[in-house]
């Protein structure tokens, strides 16, 4: 495990170096002033004191709309490999030909990539579209220093300087960024920029630990221990009906969720061009499970809301040994009717 440091003032040089290897996506302000993860060209200011991006980086691996197949004269074709620049967020389904560096992903969102990996790279069949984008993606995580009131990563196995899902973990210090290689991809990255990096000194490592501890202390714990077991006994609880009463079924929670991955496949016809397209879908939508016969196994928001939480906190644990929640809090911050999944576990009791 290599540990290095780079002065904040040299960050642009590091990003320039990475630009020579692929597309660099880093925190930057969009036209409305939000800090988003987007490709930054040389000279564009990179922002490091953001909390988290409005959209999770799952969009880079599972684009909201992605072409799976094209049909000409009824014959299906896989999208041809991309010829020029291929950022990983491309929705046209073309295999990318160069690396993408995601710089500044928060630890919760990086942990979520491991959950997506279980779905799309695990099981009997791998998903080739996800696999191609994943293989070309290098994740540089930036540890959190200022968690939000909706954050609860420390209750789902993570933390503000968690390494899960990171290729490199970066921790912001007073004068430097501490860079820790976590995976072989991360080691490659650090060695490709070796001439820009200094050694991590013991005081720097100590400062990083201290900052991580302080950040973790700010996060309010949620009682999520044994969630799968507790939910196993709660399927028929009246709680689902009560808490879901105000749910609009808008799907904001799952579109913004870094681990929600359910998708639809539909055909789009424009003139002679037929595309088979994968789009994000959501179990909160009534059409999600509607049969052609008219029968719907989950007819009301109660069943649908229960399904969403059961999947994340029980079924995923039973199937994959992993919670499908990373405590990023987006569903809490962005729900138009202020539903808060933490209430379920509070109300359920031990």
């Amino acid at each position: 495990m290599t540990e290095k440091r780079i002065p904040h003032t040299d960050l642009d040089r590091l990003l320039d170096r990475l630009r020579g290897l692929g597309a660099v996506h880093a925190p930057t302000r969009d036209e409305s002033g939000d800090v988003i993860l987007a490709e930054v060209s040389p000279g564009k200011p990179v922002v490091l004191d953001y909390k988290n991006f409005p959209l999770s980086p799952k969009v880079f691996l599972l684009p909201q709309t992605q072409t799976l197949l094209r049909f000409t004269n009824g014959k299906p074709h896989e999208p041809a490999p991309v010829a020029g620049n291929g950022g990983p967020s491309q929705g046209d389904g073309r295999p990318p030909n160069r690396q993408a560096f995601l710089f500044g992903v928060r630890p919760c969102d990086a942990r979520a990539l491991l959950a997506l990996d279980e779905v799309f790279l695990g099981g009997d069949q791998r998903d080739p579209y996800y696999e191609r984008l994943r293989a070309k993606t290098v994740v540089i995580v930036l540890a959190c220093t200022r968690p939000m009131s909706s954050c609860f990563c420390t209750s789902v196995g993570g933390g503000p300087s968690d390494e899960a899902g990171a290729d490199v973990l970066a921790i912001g210090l007073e004068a430097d960024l501490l860079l820790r290689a976590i995976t072989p991809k991360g080691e490659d990255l650090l060695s490709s920029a070796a001439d820009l990096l200094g050694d991590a000194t013991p005081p720097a490592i100590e400062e990083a630990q201290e900052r991580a501890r302080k950040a973790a202390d700010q996060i309010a714990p949620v009682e999520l221990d044994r969630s799968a077991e507790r939910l196993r006994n709660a399927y028929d609880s009246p709680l689902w009906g009560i808490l879901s009463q105000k749910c609009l079924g808008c799907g904001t929670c799952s579109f913004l969720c870094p681990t929600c991955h359910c998708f639809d496949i539909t055909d789009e016809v424009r003139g002679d061009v037929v595309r088979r397209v994968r789009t994000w879908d959501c179990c909160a939508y009534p059409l999600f499970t509607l049969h052609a016969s008219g029968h719907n196994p989950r007819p009301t928001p109660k069943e649908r809301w229960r399904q969403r939480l059961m999947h994340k906190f029980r079924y995923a644990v039973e199937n994959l040994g992993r919670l499908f929640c990373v405590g990023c809090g987006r569903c809490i911050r962005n729900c138009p009717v202020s539903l808060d999944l933490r209430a379920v576990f509070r109300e359920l009791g031990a």
Partner: protein
Amino acid sequence: MARNPYLPYPARIEEVVIENEARDIKSFRLVLDNAQDAAEFRHLPGQFAELSLPGFGEAPFGIASSPTETGYLLFTVKRMGLFTTELHSLEAGAGLGVRGPMGKPFPWDRMVGKNLLIIGGGFAFTTLRAAINYTLEPQNRTRFGSVFVVYGARTPGELMYRDELAKWQTRDDIDVHLTVDKADATWTQHEGVVTSVLDSLKPSSENALAVVCGPPIMIKFTLFSLAKLGFPDDAIILSLEMRMKCGIGKCGRCNIGSKFVCKDGPVFTREELRSLPAEY
């Protein structure tokens, strides 16, 4: 590199058969365009596949042919929505795509040496047709005990595969009981729901497995009858319907409890279903 699991095999409709009086159920005999694809497509009765029509999408259907019927795949489809309406408009010679086979078949390893009670209702009889033809194949027939079939439909005109049903009824190595909810003047066989046939004929549960496919209401009452006949939950084999898209356990749509109907099912024993939420 493994084959892209979203890429359908190109195929052609070789024959279309109207199966019922209402003319809203048709069987499509498909032949895969490429011999290599056909060799790769190896299924067992109980499995399903996604049919693909460019511009209309995909939909999952049980495979109605037995693998012992070589050279083609049979799908029997009721006209319901956009996809099936388009499929019903196609004639012999039309092209389409097939993705599969998908899901777990009936538990054939467990079925060897057993007496088989096969119970079907309405247009869900498709994979049961595959199962019956599979067991009747000469090299297979001796591997199973008795084969006792109860198949019900609303009216005589709604029974599918009528030529085959008649042929099976002339054989002495299979017992086929047909019943209709509402008989007409020409009908000479059972009248009443499937469970009334079971309750009066009382097929033995001794060394037997029951395979049941049908509409939810039929399943519900058949389970009562089977319990009365002494079938334990792990001797009752059911096939679930759930809306599906990817068919390979990724898209999340057919998730029930910790199972995905597309890859862990669609075939489950009643015992397995008892451990799942009743969301189907």
